Structures are given as C-alpha cells and as structure tokens.
C-alpha cells in the first residue's frame, strides 16, 4: 500500500500542473475556486507522498478486497466485457447486448450453475423491461445494425 500511496500522490501532483495551467485561461473569478481546490489537493498529495516514506505512520483500513495483484484480473475482465457490451449497445440494442454480456460474464466469473444463471438473467431482463420500458417509459436502445 505504501507504493500505491506514493504512485497515487505522484499521479495527483502530475495532473495538478496542467489543470492549474488551464485555470489561467478562465475569465476572471471563474478561476478562483478551481485554483483553491487544486492547491488544497496538491498540498494533501504532498502529505500523502511524504507519509509514504514513513510506513509506520500510515493508518489502517487501507483498501477493500484482496491485496493479491492477481485479484484485479477478474474485475478488470468483467469491466472490459461490460464496457464492450455498452459500446455495442447503440448498434445491437440494449437487450441483445445485455444477453451477450451475461453470456461472457458466465465464463469470466467462472460460474458453475448454468441453468440457475440463465433463469436469473432471463428474469432480470424481463424485470428491466417491465419496470423501465413498460412502467417508466424509458426508451431502451433498439438495434440499428440493419437500419
């Protein structure tokens, strides 16, 4: 976590420089508040950076979930799957994209009960249709692939 804190602090400080420069383009008082906030962020990032050199002074409760770097793989794979489905959603439509995403997630999540999973996803999609499309009138995306 010490290394993560150091990296985060450095990333914040690096990002603060161009953001500060951008505020100089803002007209008059529009730059005042962002400047105050960026300054405060930079000061706290320096504190985080300095403290990362004193590991004994770092508080507990540092992060949720597993600390094993391999634990990132499945969430990132799930995120990539979901993002891909969302990007294709305007082309293939909401429900086909969600169905395809669920099918890939079955593999990504290493699920073991295919029948239970399929029934749950079908019920979910029906519920979304009933609540959002039928009751709330949300026009979920239709496929434009063949238009």
């Amino acid at each position, binding site marked *: *976590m010490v290394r*993560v*804190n150091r990296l985060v602090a450095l990333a914040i400080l690096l990002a603060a420089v161009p*953001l500060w420069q*951008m*505020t100089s383009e*803002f*007209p*008059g*008082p*529009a730059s*005042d*508040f*962002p400047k105050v*906030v960026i300054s*405060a*962020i930079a000061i*706290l*990032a320096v*504190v*985080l950076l300095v403290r990362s050199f004193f590991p004994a002074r770092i*508080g*507990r*409760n540092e*992060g*949720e*979930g597993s600390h094993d770097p391999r*634990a990132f793989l*499945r*969430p990132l*794979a*799930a*995120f990539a799957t*979901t*993002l891909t489905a*969302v990007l294709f*959603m*305007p082309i293939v439509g*909401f429900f086909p994209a*969600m169905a395809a*995403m*669920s099918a890939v*997630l079955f593999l*990504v*999540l*290493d*699920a*073991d009960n295919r029948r*239970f999973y399929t029934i*749950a996803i079908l019920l*979910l*999609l029906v519920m*979304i249709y009933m*609540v*959002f499309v039928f009751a*709330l*009138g*949300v*026009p*979920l995306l239709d496929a434009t692939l063949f238009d």
Partner: protein
Amino acid sequence: MDATPFIYILDVFTIPNVLAIVAGVIAGLCIGALPGLTANLGVALILPVTFSMDVTAAMLMLTSLYTAAIYGGAFPAILLHTPGTSASAATAIDGFVLTQKGKFNKALRVATFSSVIGGIMSAIALLFVAPPLSLISLMFGPSEYFMLAVFGITVIGTLSSGNVTKGLLAGLLGLFLSTIGADIDSGYFRYDFGTFALQSGINFVPAVIGLFSMSQALLMCEEARKSIQQVRLKGKDEWRFLPTMKELRELRGTLARSSIIGIFIGILPGAGGDIGSWVSYNEAKRFSKTPEKFGKGSIEGICASETANNAVTGSSLIPLLTLGIPGSATAAILLGALIIHGLLPGRTLFTDNAHITYTVIFGFLFANIFMGIVGMAIGRHMSHITRLPNYILIPMIIALSTVGAFSLGNDMFNVYTMFFFGLLGYLMRKSGFPPAPLILGLILGPIAETGFRQSLILADGPVVLYILSSPISLILFAATLLSVISAVWMEYRRS
C-alpha cells in the same frame, strides 16, 4: 386543534405513496439481506426509478429503502453469522449464537422489534428537532454556506476512512469535479476538453451509481463464486409476532438508551449506523445486569445494535433537511435526490414545501412499522435470498446500473460516466480512498463555490478574514479544525 398533521398523515395513505413505501421496504429488505449489498448501493440503484415519480412518493421510496436495508442486514447476521450491512456487525455476535441454540425466532423478533422502535424514535426526533433547527439556516449567508460545505466534506472525509489524508483528498476531488462545465457567472466552459457532453458538468446520478453500485460489482468479482452456506435452522423455537412481556421488561432500558445513542450519532455528520450500533452495544453491555451474557446469545446485545442502527437512519436526515449536511453516506445520496427533485434543504422545506416534507416524515414513520410487519412475516425465509452467489448478483447490479444511468435523459454519455466512476470507485476502494466524500464534494461543490465567490465580492480585504468574521462561520471553522485534529490524533494513536 390544528388539523394539518392529520392531512399529512392521510396523504401518506394515498395509493402512490403506499405503493412507494411498500416497494421501498421490500427492495430495502432484500438488498440489506444480501451480504455485500449496502443501503448506499440500494438507494443509488433505485434513484433513477424515482425520476418520473411525484417528489413525495420518490422520497418515501428512498427513505423506506434506506431504513429497511439497515434492518435487512440483521437477517444474515442472525441466521448466517454474516452481517448484511456493516451496521449489523454487532448483531451477528449474539444473534448467531441464539440461532445455534435453535432460538432464531427469538433473535429475529427482538431484532425486528428493536429496529422498528429505533426507526420510530428517529422519525419522531426528525419530526420535532428538524423544524426548529431549520431556523438556523435563515441566518446563513455566502460565507456560512461556504464554511458549511467545507465542514460537511471535512467531517465525512475524516470519518469515512481510516486515513484522514485520503478521505480529505476524495472530498477535494469531488469539489474539483464539480467545477467541470459551464461557469455559473461567465458561462465559460471549464475543463470540458472540447467535449460537448462535459459542458453541462458531471451529472451526480451516474456518478453515484458508478461509485457505489458498479464499484461494488467489480469488488464482488474478486470472489465471484462466493456464496454463503446455509445453516440448518433446527429446534422448535416458537414463532411470535411481538416479544413477550418478560423480554420487553428486560429490553426497555436498552431500547431507550440505544434509541438516544442512535439519534445522537445519526445527527453527527458522517457517523453512520455502524458506529451507532457498536457504541450502543458497548453501552448496553456496560449498563447490563448480566454483561457476562454478551457474546453468548444476549438479547440485550441484539436489541442495542438493531435499535441504534435504525435510530441513525431518521436522525441522519435532520442535518440533511435543515442544513444540507448529510449525517451518513446514504444521506449524502438522498441529498442529491432532493436536489434532483427540485427541493433545497433549509427552512423552505418546512414552510413552502412543508406538505412534502411532513408527509415524507410521517411516511417514514409508517415505513418503519410496515418494515417490522413484513420482516416478521418473511424473516425466517430470508436466509434463502442471502445465499444468492456473487456470480448471479454481479450481472444484476451491472445491468441495473447501466439501465439506471441511461434512464437519466436517455443519454449514453451518462452510461459512460457511470462506467468511468465505477472504475474510479473500484480503484479508490482498493487503495483506501472512500467514495462518500467524493460524492458529497460533487453535490456541495456548487454551493461552496457560490459562497466562496460571493464572499470574494463582499470581502473588503482578505477573504479569509471576511469568512471568519461571522460567528456561525467561526463556529463551523472551529468544528472543521476540531474534526481534522481529532481524526489525525486518533490515526496517530492507532499507528
């Protein structure tokens, strides 16, 4: 006699309002009963459903869901030794011991009765404390509003994380994100990076859904096959709807004490149900005639934890409705919901919009009673819901988050925003940055900036001196300083 309160009570029982309460309670019970799913996640997911609803019904649904989710956490805590929410962690200690002894019905009815009493007491506190407290908001000018926003973000930042620096950084990041988009005075587009969609700023709703729901789904992916093993409920424990007179006599002191503790902790900005339940549990043990029973199936222990965590729910709305400072992370999302529905915290909620506010408060009271009835009816069977494996819950959360973000203006950019904040929230939570201060910063950012800029114009000299020239600002500044110093001191002691 003034008949107005009766009109508000009657308004609770209109069909849309009752349906909203029923839906909120059932959704809250299910979400609370699922370990890993929190009240924050529930409110964030349901928020888009309320857009097309009447504001009273919408707030009733959200507040009912909040209180029911906190109570719902008691089911897996008692039946499976796995708290559904962090606020029920103390309940698991004695609740599961009773289940092992075959007295799960006793544990469930004590938890239910205590949650209902805690919820009702907090609703009563909300009813009587909030209106006079809202008068303070009339004394607020630009500098006070600026300091209030700083105080709110600081308190949530220091309390919601074990690391003060990270909590404050998260709050400041929220404040910075709130500056994206058109400037309030000049109309100049700040940090839009040439993107048209960013010119109207970052929408709060997809950010909330991403930070609380999507990030939770990603965290759950780490243990995708995890599900809780069912504990065989054995024994012939008699089912009763209400506690026996003997149990009530044993619990009356704890009920009163824990209600007061929960209400007090709920009013403190940033201190949620988990702090309330632990403080109350420790106090109940200290005052108990049989402290040796704690940890071995004490009903006083269950009562203390459950009364306090539900007493927090209503009282956390007191600073929210009166000053716009949420008492918990869930209340921070409710603040956003209020603003989306066109209501601003402060005195006007109790004058111009009194009809809505009081109907919601009375409805919240009714929701707590209804929650108890439903809870006792289905409590024993909730163990089936709690055993849903993560790989079923993950696609559900992702799909509902996606459709929820899209339904806000039927705009795909909101979905992309939700995904951005989902990944950001996941990385923040992995590296110990709490998401709640970020959301509060995003919500309070415009209030803070307006107050700051008006103070700059009004100040005849250094703006800091102008801001601190007001007694209220000075008190808020002292409270801000105190919260930071105490949090740093506690962190130093821990390390």
